[in-house]
């Protein structure tokens, strides 16, 4: 049975590669994730989007995996593979039958040391990524989120979108990409996670075989600019053609290691329902939220058709964002007023004991549901080790259980202030009349 307390073996190779291994024998499967401490926060001017573009390039052939043979290795074991990039991290995964472990480790070692970055592939991928960016712009909610983040941060690199700004994507060169890859894809900047139906000792021997010979790189000096304390409310109004109005209210929020993080996680559960802590899995499943404060104030009153909250574990202070979709015909000003009234009340009065108990029960269940597959478990181990330490994840149930009413009240008082927030509206302009296709309802 999967349990949060199942043993995680932790070791570090001589070249600095951290390895986390957990045996899970419920299904004949194994999941391998390789995490790099590089994300969009590491990007400078002219290079926004480079982390994500590198992620794409790292699926395009290596010194020992020809370009046309990348696909098919894991599929032959019925497996899936993928990767993603966000503000603090870039990661790659394979999950397949356990006999694919050797191939998974081979692929990840190749990805770390031997990607090719052929100029033709770099050019081909440029248009793929611009297509991805344009697809995101088609969604007004996503567009508002991007603009809101850029408005909330004025100094910290969390301000630019992970996919990058268009002009950088148009001008970045192959050398930019390859130089970035070589700088960050080194064993002493990575964590390898293995979870599944494997023999731990044998798996570690295989890890040493594939990764032990990769030379460490120069240590990476990171000089992050701290976001100065926000000293007044910021507002953003997007007006484009569309059919639906969206509201977002973002507060600067603490990173994962701050004492306010778990109280704020409880507060988010009280306001919009518990999401858990798994960016990979649980954020795809809507939270239990019918009885939450914002659902009742906005959706049950017919002001909004949808409400959500987002508090993600991050290395540096990021955002606690509340979002609402205005019901057709409702004004954004009404939605905003109702939402701020709820937040103001919780800032002044905190939450109740039954609310605290319910939020803890929700999070307890969510953590269980998050651990239903080896892929999810492996994600969590690597994610937390990359943004902080795996110990923070293993201790999360205890940290949640220890949160008190006063902890939540203190976090709410500290964070939910007018000076600390950025409010964004997407207020749609009427869509120009366009002919409907003939004969189609």
């Amino acid at each position, binding site marked *: 049975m999967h349990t949060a307390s199942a043993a995680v073996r932790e070791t570090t190779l001589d070249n600095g590669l951290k390895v986390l291994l957990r045996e899970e024998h419920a299904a004949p499967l194994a999941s391998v994730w390789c995490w790099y401490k590089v994300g969009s926060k590491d990007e400078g001017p002219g290079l926004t989007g480079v982390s994500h573009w590198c992620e794409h390039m790292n699926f395009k052939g290596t010194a020992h995996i020809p370009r046309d043979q990348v696909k098919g290795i894991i599929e032959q074991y019925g497996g899936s593979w993928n990767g993603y990039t966000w503000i603090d991290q870039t990661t790659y995964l394979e999950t397949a039958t356990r006999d694919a472990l050797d191939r998974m480790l081979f692929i990840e070692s190749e990805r770390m040391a031997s990607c090719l970055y052929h100029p033709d592939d770099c050019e081909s991928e440029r248009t793929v990524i611009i297509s991805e960016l344009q*697809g995101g712009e088609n969604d007004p909610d996503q567009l508002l989120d991007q603009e809101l983040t850029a408005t909330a941060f004025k100094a910290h690199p969390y301000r630019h979108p992970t996919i990058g700004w268009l002009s950088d994507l148009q001008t970045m060169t192959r050398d930019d990409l390859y130089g970035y890859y070589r700088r960050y894809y080194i064993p002493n900047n990575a964590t390898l996670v293995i979870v599944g139906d494997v023999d731990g000792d044998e798996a570690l021997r295989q890890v040493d075989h594939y990764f032990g010979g990769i030379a460490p790189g120069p240590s990476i000096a990171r000089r992050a600019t701290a976001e100065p304390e926000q000293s007044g409310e910021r507002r953003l109004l997007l007006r484009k053609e569309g059919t639906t109005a969206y509201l977002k209210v973002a507060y600067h929020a603490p990173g994962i290691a701050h004492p306010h993080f778990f109280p704020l996680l409880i507060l988010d559960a009280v306001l919009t329902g518990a999401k858990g802590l798994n960016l990979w899995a649980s954020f795809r499943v809507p939270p239990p939220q019918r009885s939450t404060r914002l659902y009742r104030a906005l959706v049950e009153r*017919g002001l909004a058709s949808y409400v959500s909250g987002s508090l993600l574990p991050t290395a540096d202070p990021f955002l606690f964002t509340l979002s609402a979709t205005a019901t057709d015909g409702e004004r954004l000003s009404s939605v905003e007023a109702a939402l701020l009234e709820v937040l103001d009340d919780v800032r002044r009065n905190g939450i109740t004991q039954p609310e605290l108990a319910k939020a803890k029960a929700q999070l307890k269940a969510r953590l*269980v549901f998050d651990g239903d597959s080896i892929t999810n478990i492996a994600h969590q181990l690597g994610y937390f080790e990359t943004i902080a330490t795996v110990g923070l994840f293993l201790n999360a149930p205890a940290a949640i259980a220890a949160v008190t009413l006063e902890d939540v009240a203190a976090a709410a008082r500290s964070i939910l202030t007018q000076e600390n927030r950025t409010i964004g509206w997407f207020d749609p302009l009427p869509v120009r009349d366009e002919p409907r296709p003939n004969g189609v309802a």
Partner: protein
Amino acid sequence: MAVNTSGPRARAGLAPARERLDNGVVFLGKQTQTTPAVAINLAVRAGSIVDPPGAPGTTWLLSRTIDRGTLTQPANAIAEALDSRGITLSITVSRHLFSLVCTCLAEDFDPVLALLGDIIMAPALPEPEVAIRKGEVITAIRQDDDNPGVRATETLMAMLYPDGHPYGRRTKGSIDIVESLTRDHLAGLHAARFAPSVLTAVIVGDVDTTRARDAVARVFDGWRAPVPSAPAVASPPVPRERRRVVVPMMNKAQADIAYGFTTIRRNDPSYYAYWLMNNALGQYSIGGRLGDRIRERQGMAYYVSSALDANIAEGPLVIRAGVSPANVDRAIASIDEELALLRRDGLTAKELDESRRYLIGSMPRALETNAGIANFLQTEEIFGLGLDYDVRLPDLLSAVTLDETHAAARQAVDPDRATVVIAGPYES
């Protein structure tokens, strides 16, 4: 009554328990112990195909309203009962099924199943709730109207399945129709279409199978309702020529292409050949042949893939791509060429072998979680695939020949009879 867990022959595999209760409810159960949780998947054969004539969207609105109070419990009590246990109840409507799905902690299984049973059997559908949910659905329809992907797909489906065919209707309906719906419409649909004889209750997780069966019986045994008539679903017409439609959405940055055909029924003997053919065409790895060409070699799209949805009636095969407006014509030409090649030459032996190995090998992943198993068992039940389907599936895929996949391609994907829809900032 004892639960029958033995199939027609001794075998490994899921070996779920199945029993039809006296009132017609089908119970399917499988005990697992990977997490202390249970997946509950209750499916009523009352999907959007049972929408009343002239009122598409009624089933969808019912799905938004059915859990907002029962004859014995107000909406806020239901919300509290679910939220306090950390449960998200997902209520979905597909063409053929109306489903209530959730995962709960094992310790909460009995009260949660009882609550879901109450929701299915005795919804109150209060007027104020109906009014609020209508506003939500109308907002969702407005959002769909602003989404090129949805517009392209819905337009395609309306063209492939014309004249009010249930597969061609918008599941959410139209704003006019939703505005006209009342509590009585929803109650009438529920009375006519919800009955024990069309309910399948699947329970998978950390609960003893016999206990799960008894719990299902306790909740549903007293339910009596007339057997609903089986809704007829006609075969769609076969397009005789290529059709192309543009849905201009000049406020968007990217265009969505939906390119499709009608195909076969799920119980057609050639289904497995179609499945393998489609996997190689637009699924395998990053989108099969289509992904290789349009994304990997031409760099024209972030996503391109094909999906086969063989169903009770002849379902569609739909190719989807998101591309820059400047690349729309090139992308469609590339799809045309790939389909023409596939029709002419069929798959290679290597492609067939790769897709077969992938589909067989992916089964442990598909059946790793409780929710995955529950979904698999519901599919077994609706299509009558048998309790040993997970065991037989590798053989079914292994038996498919190259000639059969070639025949499937020749039959299914003729560019000269394709229906092509482009939605986005594109003018023909």
